[in-house]
């Protein structure tokens, strides 16, 4: 599936005030992927999922190329949940999708599943944000200096996946565009979680009815893996998997194990 075409669709939502760009790849039943704070990147994990699923990945408002000011059409988290719900509805899926969300996208997936319990058939949360424990504070990734990000996101900052993520493009113009895009994406997603990424999800998680898989890296330096159990106890019947020797992005740092877990779970 590597190198397969990624279709791009624009769906109008929010009473015509916002056009959301959605990237679609692969084939099979629908799988909604909600990206992390840094924006949408079609990584090997998504490419692999595309073998069995039609991966449908909306871009968070403001993070789509050429439309940065779109973020200002969405005021708060409630707006944002409704915007995503409208976008999924506008895609006209023939059956309820399964959903996978990573980090910020994990919180969004959980918010959507709590708001509209029939929206997703199954739910996979990869190290989601959204809860807060005073004894285990979540690192402020938005303020983390760029040179400290590899160690925040990966157990082994020297691993190939980390190198691939943090090696800037050779072309200086592309490098500037990539850095600026990353910074702006952190600002656009940060709008809904600054200054503390806890906006009441703990009071809403009981509404999630979709069978849920929670995957966490044991050595997550951004959100301690203790949060896996916090999600697990609040979502009835959910399953928690902790991967050893793994940081905040299990689908990249422990790609094979994570893919096997997700595939097995989604196949039901």
């Amino acid at each position: 599936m590597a190198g397969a075409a990624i279709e791009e669709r624009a769906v109008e939502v929010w009473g015509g005030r916002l056009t959301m760009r959605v990237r679609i790849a692969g084939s099979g039943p629908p799988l909604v992927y909600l990206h992390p704070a840094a924006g949408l990147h079609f990584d090997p994990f998504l490419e692999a999922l595309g073998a069995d699923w039609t991966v449908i990945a909306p871009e968070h408002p403001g993070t789509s190329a050429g439309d940065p000011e779109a973020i200002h059409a969405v005021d708060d988290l409630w707006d944002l949940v409704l915007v995503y719900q409208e976008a999924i509805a506008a895609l006209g899926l023939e059956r309820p999708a399964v959903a996978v969300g990573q980090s910020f996208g994990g919180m969004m997936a959980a918010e959507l599943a709590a708001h509209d319990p029939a929206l997703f058939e199954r739910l996979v949360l990869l190290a989601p944000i959204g809860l807060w424990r005073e004894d285990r504070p979540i690192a402020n990734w938005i303020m983390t200096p760029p040179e400290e990000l590899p160690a925040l996101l990966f157990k082994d900052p020297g691993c190939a996946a980390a190198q691939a993520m943090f090696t800037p493009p050779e072309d200086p113009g592309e490098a500037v565009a990539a850095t600026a895009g990353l910074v702006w994406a952190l600002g656009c997603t940060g709008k809904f979680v600054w200054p503390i990424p806890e906006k009441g999800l703990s009071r809403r998680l009981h509404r999630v009815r979709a069978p849920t898989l929670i995957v966490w890296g044991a050595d997550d330096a951004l959100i301690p893996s203790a949060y896996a159990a916090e999600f697990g106890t609040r979502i009835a019947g959910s399953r928690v998997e902790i991967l050893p020797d793994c940081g905040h992005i299990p689908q990249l740092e422990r790609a094979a194990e994570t893919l096997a877990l997700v595939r097995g779970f989604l196949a039901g």
Partner: protein
Amino acid sequence: MTATPSLIGSAIGYATETEGLDVAVYPVGRSLGKAREPVRVAEEYAMIDCISGGRLMAGFPVGLMFDAAINNGVPPIEVRRRYEENMRLVLRAWSDPEPFAWNGRFTQLPSVNIWPRPLQKALPVWITGVGNPATMRLALENNFGFNYFGWFGSELTASRVFARFREVADAAGIPANPNRLAFMASVCVGETDEEAERVYGPHLEYFFNKGPGATSLGKLAIPGGISLPGIRFLLEDQAGDFGFAHEMRHAGIGRILEVGAAVVGSPATVAERLAGIARGYGVGNLVVMLKMGSMPRDLVADNVERFAASVLPRLRAETMGDDAPHRWWPERLGGSPEPAGAALRGAA
């Protein structure tokens, strides 16, 4: 420049009024990008205007990002929008003769009815910026004065920032009247250049090393606080607008003086340098800061005394603004201020 501008402004307003000093009171500012009680800000400034007998210049910076986002928890991407809404509310609270309801995004109030009202019919409003053209446009379109400062090293940044202001003014079709521009400088006056450098040097180093130098650029540029085109500009420009900010933490007095981050020397040197800044950048107002860092009280008093006695008369001999009435200066001090905020009110 202080953490509690209204408190200090009221003390200065009272002291200067009882001493009979006809000077403007200019708190550089209540940052409205962070303010969660904008009506209280409107009342505090109105009270300072009353205490000072109508000598307030109302400074409202958007605010430093770390202060708004970290100290006050405002999402960085909302700081500028909060500023604009708060500014609209403050200006209307000062000018609307009737109580009104306010249905804003950040503030909702059933009835706004401030007490006291400002003494001045048209309070001069000033905004301090670091070079963002959006802030310059905001100042021009709303009849605010625009204040820029020398801490980043005026030799490195001032000419480009003031040139940009003129470009923005030209594009907006608004004359860049020198009276609407101010330059704010840390100023140290000694008997001779050598003495000034020796006496004030350690205090300037303390100030730059432990004050602005201790704030990392990352905390001034938190993601979301700068628009996407702004980020690209800063990356491609290699942060030239921030001058020697990245060196401040460890800068010695030689470097501080070399980049023009402070104006230091004998009365003649200081007067010549400040007049040169005003002429060179087309600036009609100078804001001088005579106390900084670890300066002891007596040295501050010496500095104020020397500036007033030996520098000010030389500067007054210069013609700084143009001949037209000064429209960003309190009426009681000879200005003819006009109402501020037209564009913001139009956007409401």
